[in-house]
């Protein structure tokens, strides 16, 4: 076992604290920056203590938006992001539950072939296929729509694989018992598999919601209509758009607000999330 003497413990803590500090510091800077007025940033040095403009900055960001940068008010972008993240998370879960169900419980030709195809796409991130995907979405006329924002990101090898692994831990007798009880495949799926997977679904929901929320490149490519801007890309627009210097205090306020929903999702679903990743119900 690890030696438990005083010095090694202190060293371990020092390293951990240093690591945490490295991660926390930028977040801290963002929060601090969002409480100062625009003038502060022009001097070139970042203050490390809270300013007095917090209330004003946040109300400006939330209610007025930055008309000059061509971005809609932040509420609109938050809503867009929320719709996109929810559609992606729920869509991914629905699709991968069904495909895992098919792969585990049905015998059809090329079953393992399809499984491996799905598995191999795990290695391809969105960015790799982004040009052809853009072409497809453009040809289908889905630019500047929620469908275009979410559908191409819904197919998920990761979730399919996770559900497959989970389904395989469910004893076969469960299926047989359900068959004896007169449950067809879909009934078995709805009445047995779905309730049993609930913690896994919650865990994946958290991961996928954050994945969808943090999408940056894809919304940047396919939306030109400010009505469909998401918050994450909206921040980019705020920085680069407009003729004047970026209004860093407002950008930072937006950043802090944009970071809130994922944090809230995690906070609310933490218990289920941890359970879903660690526990297998038998």
């Amino acid at each position: 076992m690890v030696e438990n003497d005083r010095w090694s413990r202190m060293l371990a803590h020092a390293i951990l604290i240093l690591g945490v500090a490295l991660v926390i510091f930028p977040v801290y800077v963002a929060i601090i920056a969002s409480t100062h007025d625009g003038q502060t940033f022009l001097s070139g040095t970042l203050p490390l203590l809270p300013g007095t403009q917090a209330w004003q900055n946040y109300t400006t960001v939330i209610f007025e938006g930055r008309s000059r940068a061509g971005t809609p008010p932040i509420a609109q972008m938050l809503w867009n992001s929320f719709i996109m993240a929810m559609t992606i998370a729920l869509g991914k879960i629905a699709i991968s539950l069904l495909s895992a169900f098919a792969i585990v419980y049905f015998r059809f030709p090329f079953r393992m072939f399809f499984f491996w195809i799905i598995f191999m796409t795990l290695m391809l991130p969105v960015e790799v296929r982004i040009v052809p995907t853009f072409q497809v979405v453009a040809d289908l006329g889905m630019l500047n729509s929620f469908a275009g924002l979410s559908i191409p990101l819904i197919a998920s090898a990761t979730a399919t694989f996770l559900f497959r692994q989970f389904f395989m831990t469910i004893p076969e007798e469960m299926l047989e018992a359900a068959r004896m009880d007169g449950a067809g495949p879909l009934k078995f799926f709805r009445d047995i598999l779905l309730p049993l997977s609930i913690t896994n679904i919650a865990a994946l929901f958290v991961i996928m919601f954050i994945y969808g929320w943090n999408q940056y490149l894809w919304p940047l490519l396919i939306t030109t209509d400010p009505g469909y801007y998401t918050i994450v890309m909206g921040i980019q627009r705020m920085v680069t758009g407009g003729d004047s210097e970026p209004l860093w205090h407002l950008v930072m306020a937006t950043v802090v607000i944009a970071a809130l929903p994922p944090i809230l999702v995690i906070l609310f679903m933490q218990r289920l999330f941890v359970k879903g990743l660690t526990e297998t119900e038998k």
Partner: protein
Amino acid sequence: MSSIRIHNLSKVYADGTHAVKGIDLTIRDGEFIVLVGPSGCGKSTLLRMIAGLETITTGDLYIGEQRVNQLEPAQRDIAMVFQNYALYPHMTVYQNMAYGLKNRGWQKSAIEERVRKTAQMLEIEHHLTRKPKALSGGQRQRVAMGRALVREPAAFLLDEPLSNLDAKLRVQMRVEIKQLQRRLQTTSLYVTHDQLEAMTLGDRLVVLNQGQIEQVGAPLEVYQRPETLFVASFIGSPNMNLIPVQAINHPLNQAALATLPQQTDILGVRPDKLLLQPPTTPHIQFECSMTLFEPAGAESHLYMRLCSDEHNLVMRVESMSELFQQPSFTVYAEIQHLHPFNQSSGKRTDS
């Protein structure tokens, strides 16, 4: 309730394994049949074919008057109890029991009435709102039984239902299952590898070996008159002693051995039929030496070895005797308690 007729039933798996080889069996209405055999003998496969969980390669299966080869499990009007119970972990006991009825489109009130009645019979009515996780092994076993009973099926299939319980509970549940079956008079098929369970539960035993039926008969009949060497060695605990005739072929036994049927080259004798005193009836005798004495309370087991050819035997005795301290002692067996077999055919020779 109905009879089950199995005609020339076979199962060949995709990999070529011939698990069940042409089985013929008729199970009468209300009968309790126990399928018994060592692991891999095809007993579970046979049960699962009857349940509809395995397809039938060849042969016919009738439940009642209907040929059910092609029917889905749920359409066969049978219920099954699984070895690991296979209770739905996310449902309460009530929901577990009601699920099959619900899927059959029963009215809520009718389901409620039937579940309560069944739960009462199994003494689990206090657990109806609990989940399987919160129950003990024995209680889960009851719920599994309840889930099968609640439908009042034509036949009951039980796949080693007691093997997950501890020894004490197993005996208790065994008795209860027997009583329950007596009361309900439901045709039942019970699979086990435990020959004690088989002996105590069944109206008739079906001894299976390598996908084939070795013997069918009432438990005592099978015990008292095993038709094959396999049955002789499988049924009974401790195992029947199987002694090669040539090992005891000495002058004192000549007269007795001459009365045996032709072709007999193996003699079976139960451990409790070996004697330490010479009986008055015709008998055989042989010299043995002790290898191990195993006290087990009411009776004890004496492991010994034939002096003539090192063949191991076991004998049921009341207690440790002075006799066993000697380098060798004489053991007797009455002719009427010998089971004559032929080694190469594996069959009884006096039939």
